[in-house]
């Protein structure tokens, strides 16, 4: 490494450190990605989509051989129906949300579709605004989307219109936040999830660290106190 030849006494400005990562241009990465697969070469499907829905298809990103198509939020049901019935992408592999943390179009929902017979994969994404927080459901076309949309609601708060069962997936209904939003702290909000009582007839504990604050749950029967104990 050339940097090792420099004298250690002169501190470098951060921008000249050799390990400063210059973001690689996506286009150069495509050409020599050793993991790009043949299944994601769906340029013809994307062209058909553009031909069919020319106003609704907003953007196409190609990276590592994968095609990600951004469509209008209102058009997603029609796009899914087109892909499922006419192009054979009848298998929904995954559906999920992303918090882009931008002023506009904060959330994104992606749909990974697979054409089993044709051996193809495609990804469709839609953007959801923070003020509306709704998106149309695709459970009518892909019943597999049921739990994935519930998880998206649980983690981000995006409700899906027309979903038969819009409940939370992982967190209990009593929980009031949406954890995967970028502003939700990793350690959670103390008191948002109560702990069980420390005795059978006790009250729920709002403090997440009662043992550290001196409230260890008592044993239910008397114990021998040995000489070594020094509580």
């Amino acid at each position, binding site marked *: 490494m050339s940097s090792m030849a420099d004298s250690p006494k002169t501190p470098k400005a951060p921008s000249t450190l050799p390990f400063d990562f210059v973001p690689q241009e996506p286009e150069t990465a495509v050409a020599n990605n050793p*993991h790009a697969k043949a299944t994601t070469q769906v340029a013809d499907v994307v062209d058909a989509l553009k031909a069919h829905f020319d106003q609704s298809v907003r953007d196409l990103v190609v990276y590592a051989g994968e095609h990600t198509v951004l469509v209008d939020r209102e058009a997603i049901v029609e796009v899914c129906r087109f892909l499922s019935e006419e192009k054979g992408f009848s298998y929904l592999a995954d559906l999920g949300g992303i918090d882009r943390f931008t002023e506009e179009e904060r959330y994104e929902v992606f749909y990974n579709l697979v054409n089993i017979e044709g051996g193809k994969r495609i990804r469709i994404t839609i953007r959801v605004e923070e003020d509306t927080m709704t998106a149309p459901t695709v459970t009518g076309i892909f019943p597999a989307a049921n739990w994935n949309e519930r998880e998206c609601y649980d983690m981000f708060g995006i409700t899906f219109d027309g979903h038969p*069962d819009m409940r939370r997936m992982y967190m209990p209904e009593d929980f009031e936040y949406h954890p995967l939003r970028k502003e939700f702290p*990793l350690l959670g909000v103390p008191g948002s999830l109560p702990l069980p009582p420390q005795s059978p007839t006790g009250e729920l504990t709002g403090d997440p660290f009662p043992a550290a604050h001196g409230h260890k749950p008592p044993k239910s029967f008397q114990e021998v106190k040995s000489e070594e104990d020094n509580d």
Partner: protein
Amino acid sequence: MSSISQTDWSETLKFWPRHNEALYKRLETKHSWLETSGDGAPADPLEHEMVLNIGPQHPATHGVLRCVVKLDGETIERSVLDIGYLHRGIEKIAENKTYQEFMPYTDRMDYLQPYANNVAWCLAVEKLAAIEVPERAQWIRMMMSELARISAHLIWMGVGLMDAGAVSVFLCTFQYREDIYAIFDEVAGARLTVSHSRIGGVATDVNETGIGLIKDFTDRFPEAVESWEKLLNRNRIWIDRNVGIGQMSADDVVRMGLTGPNLRGSGVAHDIRRFEPYLKYDEVDFIIPIRTEGDALARYFVRLEEMKESVKIIRQCLEKLKTVKGPVRTDDAKRAYPNKDEVYYSMEGLIHDFMYTDTGVAPPKGAATYHAIEAAKGELGFYLQSDGTGYPWRARMNSPSFTNLQGLEHLLEGAHMGDMVILIGTVDPVLGEADK
């Protein structure tokens, strides 16, 4: 009419009142698959209905799965599955760890086959950052992933049969799992949570002892499988318990998005190893077992035969490892950890090691890729989005158990209570990855 709707749950239950209220309300109001499959008229509710809450703690050892079922005698009319009892939020943790730091968390996702999860994560990051992996590392990864697949199927069989009542099979399969654990111990240093795979390759090469243990295992294991086949394949009790249970047609499974042996047991020929070959799966010779019946017995046969195919793959990998020599990790310092010799004995190596731990792999900003592998349970994929730093912006884990559990809700309706254990076993969920 039902006493449930009149009960004020917030008083009766001291914890999660709103959650349980929503759950029971959903049970009351959902349209059962049974109801809509008829002529469309709502079914006449009989007097003898009972709501039974199964779990989250229960003897079926598949994890903390809660099923709330509405029973009409012995028949399950409607069921609602409640998961999330093992939810940690690892997708959020992933946003706060570098790609390499996150490796141990992937071990704990599907903890029956931790090596395969590691490999899946490594492949996803390598696709994102366009990192090439040396050939020897790919063969090692493939061999250990197939061992992990055997390990997961062994637990499935042992626990599935134990829950169905035949406890001795559990003891047998666990003995072979201990052999696999000895292999992992030797090769990777840990029995269960291995974290042996590294971004850009694997951590260490397999030594002679490890190869010897694997060879010994592949010599002894097929006889064990044969003995289980002799015990079970024509066993009247096992067949009667499984035939016709959990029947799903090929259309059903594709619509419901099921994956893995659930797809292949119903005749859908979809296996990621053939669909989009990764590692060296296009250079080994193996078949994908497919059955068309779609019931629990078909899935049992699929998994059993997958174990045998895995042994074939491992043998071929062992052969290849004799000739394919070379590094087990890529040499690029910004893409993979340097060799430990370099780290201990050279300044550059030390600095590279430090920077790799601190900064990590930095894929291009805005890059997003999805890479899936065929885990024992199905399609395990990671959708990674990068923001240019060493921490993922979004790490979405597409776990097969989550997608398979949707199918379980459908399977339970119309089944008998006694078949419930078989149904859970045939779908084979692992709640650690379903709950993320």
